[in-house]
């Protein structure tokens, strides 16, 4: 959205393509570079040692994460994250579709779901730990128990809001139940579902980190807490940086998938706006 406004606003007169690319490059990297330089200056002059300069952090980053630690700590964390998110998506969409289609079921479960969603997800970690013990399954279950709600509730809303004219048309053409689900209900709900998945991703990442800080002897969250307890400041910063990169990667990957899945939807919106 902002990219579009930027493109239209920046061409009051015809300029060369090269200089335009250079300008957006300067915009994209100018402030981050400036901030890094300022951080470097502050970091080298500051005495508490809590803010090492970017060069030290990047050295620590390479030393800490490139090598066996990546396989031992990072990959298992990401694996659990992926498993949890996938389970939440499947579970949330399946249950959400069933609940959204049955009017009485929705009214029956609505207050209960509102309450369960309102529980701060990290609070469920001790509960799941009590029920399942400290295992890998527990961490995946924790992720699912927090991430499933936004998907479930958005699916219910999206399924409920299916255009009634289209539903009736499908009925009178005797479109079968499965086809109706696949070609009408799920596509109509998909913008809401994707919004739910976006929320679920950030919740899942938070739960991955906290469940490892809480009850683990490996994983990204555990490592960062370990570095902090042992005053390995630069290593701790490199862990924060890595988590940030994971977050950015997830956001970019989600944006890519969303554009693919909702291409028709954005197309309709463009047409309506024009």
């Amino acid at each position, binding site marked *: 959205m902002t990219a579009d406004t930027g493109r239209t606003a920046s061409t009051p007169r015809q300029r060369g393509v090269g200089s335009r690319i250079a300008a957006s490059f300067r915009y994209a990297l100018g402030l981050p570079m400036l901030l890094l330089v300022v951080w470097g200056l502050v970091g080298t002059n500051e005495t508490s040692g809590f803010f090492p300069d970017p060069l030290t952090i990047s050295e620590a980053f390479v030393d800490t994460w490139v090598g066996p630690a990546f396989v031992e700590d990072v990959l298992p964390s990401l694996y659990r994250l992926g498993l949890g998110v996938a389970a939440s998506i499947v579970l949330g969409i399946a249950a959400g579709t069933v609940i959204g289609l049955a009017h009485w079921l929705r009214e029956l479960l609505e207050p209960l779901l509102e309450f369960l969603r309102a529980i701060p997800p990290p*609070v469920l970690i001790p509960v799941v730990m009590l029920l399942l013990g400290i295992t890998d399954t527990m961490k995946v279950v924790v992720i699912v128990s927090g991430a499933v709600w936004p998907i479930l509730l958005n699916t219910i809303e999206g399924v409920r809001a299916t255009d009634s004219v289209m539903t009736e048309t499908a009925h009178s053409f005797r479109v079968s139940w499965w086809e109706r689900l696949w070609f009408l209900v799920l596509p109509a709900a998909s913008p809401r579902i994707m919004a739910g998945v976006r929320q679920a991703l950030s919740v899942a990442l*938070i739960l991955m980190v906290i469940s490892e800080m809480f009850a683990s002897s490996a994983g990204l969250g555990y490592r960062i807490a370990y570095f902090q307890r042992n005053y390995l400041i630069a290593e701790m910063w490199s862990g924060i940086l890595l988590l940030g990169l994971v977050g950015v990667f997830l956001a970019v990957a989600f944006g890519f998938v969303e554009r693919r899945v909702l291409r028709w939807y954005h197309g309709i919106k463009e047409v309506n706006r024009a």
Partner: protein
Amino acid sequence: MSVLTTRRLRPLRKTLLGVVGLAGFLVVWQSIPTLGLINPQYLPYVTDVLARLFEQLVDLAFWRRLRSTMTSWAIGLTVATCAAVVLGTVVGLVPFLRRATHTIVEFLRPIPSVALIPLAVLMFGIQMQAALVIIVYASFWQVFVQVIYGVADVDAVARDTARSFGLRRREQLTHLVLPTTLPYLMTGLRLAAAVALILAVTAEMVIGNPGLGRMIELSRSAGDAAGLYALVVVTGLLGLTVNLVFRFIERRVLSWHQSVRGEEVR
């Protein structure tokens, strides 16, 4: 006649079904340990948990912990909202700043705030300030992004009209930018309130500053299952209250807005 009665009966039916749903949940919960599916040590009886809940409600220490949680929630939310409104308005109104900050915002926003917990502990130790760092960081982005969208959403025709009528910059802000941004701001505020509560409790659990979160962690390590479940219910009720209150504020503040008025007409 029949249409009228069904219309009047519908909300009643809805409430009734909702109550039945909640009651069913409690019955299922109660029967799981009763039938021996899960040891009551791990999943206590509902009756025990509810008794514990009422015990808590008359305990002054409980209210003190609730107060510390809600204090850090309120301070964090206020600081984050003020900072986000000011910065969001400035950045949103100046195209140069919007372009220049785009990369850094897109990088900082997805960083999970809990990643900052170790840093906050190093800087402030086991205190409320450490929790505040995380609460403010998480809720800031919710409001900031909405404000930027809202400020950018000002209708071009309205802006040109205001300009040709010679409205001053300040008048433009109050009569043009503010009404356009308010729905976005309220959405951001509602999201931020929920996020701030989540992180207030989380911070107490992980960092250990006093509050409900620490009590949850303590009752877990003490093996006090009934107490743990009672506190989880409390945080759920707290989250529900925060949601309802902010939804109510949103409707009141935006009572003039199409999105709210349209719902009431229907």
